[in-house]
């Protein structure tokens, strides 16, 4: 349906009409409905939305979805390669998915372990398999995991879909746990910088004049600083003795202290352009007070733009956390985030030995891209009367 020719003034709904024609739906649709229709046409953004929602589901349910606890060390499987899941047995018949046991040999010269499937023993994959015990959200104690194998204790097998690291920890479990920290730091950080950005940007745009000048100069100053060295310096000042949760919040605050500027610019720009609109003038003339003009009339008309720019600023947050943790200045090892995981890949020799150490990087790339596409789609949709 085309939205270009809609004339809003003459588009008053016709109440007597019982069933609306397909084309007439546009006239009575709310702004959010129009946005949704427009957003739906953006294929890449739709796919990205699904990816983002799935990753947050993984983040929420990570204990259940990960096959192992991220800190379980299996010394017999250091640097074990990703495991193949078989669906055919020796004779080529299709059977339920299973994995073979894993045998290993040490090269006497290089002392390097090589792994080989031991085709004599099979372990079927199980849904809701028993594994490491955990407490979901600190409430329910259970030992069920979404996918896994149930092997008797001491047997030579580990379910490692994406391989294992230098201490024999399961990579996919670690990436899944890292999703929780990395994806949430994006949200929390953006929430903080949004608050700062809306308050300061709102002041700046609504009052103008001297306040505007001071805030704008501050923003320009912050934007002209190279951020990573500054972040590094601030993050290095976080005392090493702090508990993980405190470090997490300290890092988030440090990240948002610098990144609120982008948000403030968007908010200010919107305020400036809306301040002159007729409907704002009308609201003021009919006696609304300042707060009501802002909250009831101005804010709703730019919420959609704010949502779009939030989405576009989350990947920057995730990336910054990853970079800082990667350098060893952000979150620290007992905490599992994508950046912390990538620290293991700093040594090119261990990457050459176990390329799957780079997989957390793939998670970062997917997260960044899907947030960007989602944000692009939302930004286009936020303006339903646009092109």
């Amino acid at each position, binding site marked *: 349906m085309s939205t270009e020719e809609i004339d809003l003034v003459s588009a008053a709904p016709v109440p007597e009409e019982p069933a609306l024609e397909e084309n007439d739906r546009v006239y009575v649709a709310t702004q959010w409905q129009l946005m949704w229709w427009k957003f739906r046409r953006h294929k890449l953004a739709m796919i990205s939305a699904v990816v983002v929602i799935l990753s947050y589901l993984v983040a929420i349910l990570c204990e259940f979805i990960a096959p192992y606890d991220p800190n379980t060390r299996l010394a017999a499987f250091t640097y074990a390669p990703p495991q193949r899941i078989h669906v055919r047995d020796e004779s080529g018949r299709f059977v339920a998915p299973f994995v073979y046991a894993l045998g290993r040999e040490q090269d006497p010269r290089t002392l390097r372990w090589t792994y080989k499937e031991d085709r004599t023993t099979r372990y079927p994959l199980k849904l809701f398999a028993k594994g490491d015990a955990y407490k979901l959200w600190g409430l329910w104690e259970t030992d069920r995991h979404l996918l896994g194998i149930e092997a008797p204790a001491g047997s030579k097998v580990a379910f490692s879909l994406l391989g294992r690291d230098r201490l024999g920890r399961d990579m996919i479990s670690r990436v899944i746990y890292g999703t929780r920290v990395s994806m949430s730091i994006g949200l929390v950080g953006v929430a903080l910088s949004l608050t700062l950005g809306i308050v300061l940007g709102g002041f700046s745009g609504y009052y103008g004049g001297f306040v505007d000048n001071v805030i704008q*100069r501050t923003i*320009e*100053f912050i*934007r*002209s*600083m*190279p*951020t*990573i*060295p*500054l972040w*590094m*310096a*601030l993050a*290095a*000042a976080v*005392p090493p003795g702090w508990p993980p949760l405190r470090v997490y919040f300290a890092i988030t605050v440090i990240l948002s202290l610098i990144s609120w500027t982008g948000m403030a610019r968007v908010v200010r720009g919107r305020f400036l352009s809306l301040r002159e609109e007729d409907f704002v003038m009308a609201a003021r003339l009919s006696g609304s007070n300042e707060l009501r003009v802002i909250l009831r009339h101005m804010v709703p008309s730019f919420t959609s733009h704010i949502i779009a720019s939030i989405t576009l600023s989350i990947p920057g947050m995730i*990336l910054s956390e*990853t*970079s800082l943790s*990667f*350098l*060893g*200045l952000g979150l620290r090892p007992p905490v599992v985030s994508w950046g912390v995981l*990538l620290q293991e*890949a*700093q040594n*090119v*020799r261990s*990457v*050459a030995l176990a*390329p799957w150490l*780079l997989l957390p*990087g793939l998670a*970062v*790339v*997917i997260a*960044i*891209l899907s947030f*960007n596409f989602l944000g692009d789609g939302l930004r286009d949709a936020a303006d339903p009367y646009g092109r």
Partner: protein
Amino acid sequence: MAKFILRRILMAVPTLLAVSVVAFIIIQLPPGDYLTSYIANLRASGDALDQQEIEALADRYGLGQPMHIQYLRWMGGVLQGDFGYSMEWRVPVGDLIWERLALTVVLSFGTLMFTWLLAIPVGVLSATRQYSLVDYVATFFGFLGLGIPDFLLALVLMWIAFAYFNQSVGGLFSPEFVDAPWGWSKVADLVKHLWIPMLVLGTSGTAGLIRTMRANLLDELHKPYVTTARAKGLTEKRVVWKYPVRVALNPFVSTVGWTLPQLVSGSTIVSVVLSLPTTGPLLLRALTSQDMYLAGSFVFMLSVLTVIGTLLSDILLAWVDPRIRFEGGASR
């Protein structure tokens, strides 16, 4: 024009002052007095304590005196080229930073040039041949550059070079040139090594600029003056390059202001991964060992360089675009 430049330089002064305050705060951030920790370190390592040296340092930096005096002392030193004393290396900071800063500038500037040389023609091609193969390939690489963090790209490149070509891509010099004095052969060696970090650093910037260039040019190409030019019978090449490209380049020049901080920022972490002899690795080391004069000086000098770079880009922009020159404002 001279008036504009003068005003723009005057505007940079408060920024520089603010930068110096931030750098000073960074120096003061770690708990305790760095001289105390320096003495503790010396004691722990069993080195001989030179009481005179310590007193000279305490006196020089006004330790124990109020903050603003310490700041003024430090600032006064900086203006005379004395950046303080590196507690870890036990030499003046000035001896450590200049060569690394110079290499950082070379790297950032080289990357900027590389980004432009690649992004402008590709952006123009991608806009004039919208929805063609070139456009799709450019868009694809654009998204890739957008999604892959610099340091990850560096890691992957290093891994591929190491595992499949058995080569090390780190560093900016061949082993025989690392400690060699500067000369033409060393410069040639630098140029030979520079392209890998430039490629790594330039990817994301190029991706962004191609998209900007494409969008700008697409907007321009549909304007009536282009149709007029075409109707007058100009060749297609001339129609595109003579006017719309020049207009589309305008927002391009103005982005230098934020491209530079990003490049310096990105080069810090990339040079840690590729162990380049630029500011990154030394800054990281100074921060982890709390060698604060060194760390603070790096942050200070990097920011100053960025401010100067932005200043130059603003002047360049005013030179290219008369509208800005005559309005006199440097606001973007």
